């Protein structure tokens, strides 16, 4: 294992590289207000981050990543376009994986630029790839925007589309919803009784709590309306399955997506974006003919990425986490920016893992 000072020296070298590429150095605090992160990521972050508190400031989190504080910093005082770099520790609880470090160094590069997303995506990826060129690592890419576009294009109710969109990053739940909306899951007895009842509250002896009776009535009305929504046809389900199964080198994946778009016109714009990104990657010298692309990549581990996603892996060492990860997170900037959006893309390197690769056989 590399020492802390070796890792810090490597981190500094990588950070300088990003500074030379035009990025401004930022140094967000180690302690982050827990409320923002909890509001953004939900309860899961509490299982993964260290929470501490004092009587005055309340709950604080030991920085679980840099992205959120960098976005906040940019939103508060940044000029556009902007690019930032940073290097420092992040902290993750590893209660289920005692062999993984709970503190490690990340070096990141983030771009806020609304002129040309494809070019910004390619620029970030190429910079990461160049920094990793001495290492035997293999990139993987994906694009969450394709699945989002497919959901938007589904011929169904707004409520069903919204439910699917909400669970795009939870593949198991997403699948369960698809099955339900396809009529494959029978209605429970309790639900049937509820929908048939003339007075659903007949057996309720007490009302209370913050959720009002009118909210309950609204949901019952929504459930009744949903029973009138026709189930997905087999073609729609097959289309989603085919989309999620695409795994090929980028030019071949694009071809398969084009074929699929004949039955799924809603993904056409996202495909054009993917093509533009491929061209931009090529002009940055990236070997796109061997670059792997998977439609379902990045759905489980990277919840705030909503477009381009990538990672670099040491395939010789399957036990190692990704050496670098990144992607586009436009929706995150919208959530943090009170409605105003700034298209953003970035990535992080893990210098500790890079040094480990240098010494491993």
């Amino acid at each position, binding site marked *: 294992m590399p020492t802390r000072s070796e890792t810090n020296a490597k981190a500094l070298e990588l950070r300088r590289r990003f500074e030379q590429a035009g990025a401004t150095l930022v140094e967000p605090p180690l302690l982050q207000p827990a409320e923002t992160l909890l509001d953004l990521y939900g*309860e899961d972050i*509490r299982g993964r981050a260290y929470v501490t508190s004092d009587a005055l400031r309340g709950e604080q989190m030991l920085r679980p990543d840099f992205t959120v504080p960098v976005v906040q910093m940019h939103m508060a005082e940044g000029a556009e376009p902007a690019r930032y770099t940073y290097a420092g520790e992040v902290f993750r609880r590893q209660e289920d994986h005692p062999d993984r470090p709970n503190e490690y160094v990340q070096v990141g590069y983030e771009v806020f630029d609304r002129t040309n997303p494809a070019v910004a995506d390619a620029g970030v990826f190429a910079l990461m790839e160049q920094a990793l060129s001495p290492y035997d690592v293999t990139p993987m890419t994906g694009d969450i925007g394709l699945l989002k576009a497919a959901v938007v294009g589904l011929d169904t109710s707004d409520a069903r589309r919204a439910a699917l969109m909400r669970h795009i990053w939870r593949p198991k739940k997403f699948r369960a919803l698809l099955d339900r909306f396809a009529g494959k899951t029978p209605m429970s007895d309790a639900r049937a009784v509820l929908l048939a009842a003339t007075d659903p509250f007949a057996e309720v002896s007490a009302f209370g*709590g913050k*959720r009002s009776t009118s*909210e309950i009535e609204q949901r019952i009305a929504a459930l009744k309306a949903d029973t009138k929504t026709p189930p997905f046809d087999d073609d729609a389900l097959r289309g989603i399955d085919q989309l999620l199964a695409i795994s090929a080198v980028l030019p071949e994946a694009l071809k398969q997506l084009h074929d699929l778009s004949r039955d799924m016109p809603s993904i056409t714009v996202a495909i054009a974006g993917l093509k533009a990104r491929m061209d931009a990657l090529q002009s940055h010298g990236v070997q796109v003919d061997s670059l792997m692309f998977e439609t379902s990549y990045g759905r489980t581990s990277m919840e705030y990425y909503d477009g381009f996603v990538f990672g670099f892996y040491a395939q010789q060492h399957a036990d190692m986490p990704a050496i670098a990860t990144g992607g586009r997170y436009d929706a995150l900037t919208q959530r943090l920016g009170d409605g105003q959006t700034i298209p953003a893309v970035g990535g992080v390197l893990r210098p500790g893992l890079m040094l480990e690769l240098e010494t491993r056989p």
Partner: protein
Amino acid sequence: MTIKLGVPSKGRLMEKTFEWFADRGVVLSRTGSDREYAGRVDGVADVSLVLLSAGEVPRELAEGRLHLGVTGTDLIREKLPLWGQQVASIHEMGFGHADLILAVPQSWVDVDTLEDLDAVAAQFRATHNHRLRIATKYHRLVRDALRDAGVADYALVDSQGATEGTVANETAEAIADITSSGETLRANHLKILSDALILQSQATLWHSQTAPMTANEAAALDALLAKLG
């Protein structure tokens, strides 16, 4: 040296544990005054009794300061993420039964399953601008169960007691707690979700996988375990 057996220091759990051991010819007793947490073991050699809170038994077993300990499955699973490597279950003791469940107000007639809870969490957050709050002291178990079921837009709020009252007091919308008969839930106008039995717990005798033992102590442990059957 002796092997250390940790037993809950109070109430029904202590009495039932004493009975369970006595039925197997091992007599545990408190010594000194009622308020003094000291005890003795008769019927088997080289075993000493440690009386402590049931909630501390998991940590003491994991740290190897107890060789054996009696506590609920719920506490072991909540407090020890790697419990499978740190402790082994020797006997389920047949008392102290409690189910960790999720309950919502009885008036939520539209909520019967975790899938409903997830849908309502989305509606609740959009309406009230904060996440649906679930009061519990079993943070890890509840979070894992909800993640597995794909429930989003909720927040856990810590409640170390009188959890059933949090809904009426509007400090939470739902609760996750242990229940044996469900009577307290009913009295507080709460109902159990039909698919949210997170864990079935009972008093269990655990064996620490980390406590060091001399040859003597290992022999004492074998003798005790043989007696317990």
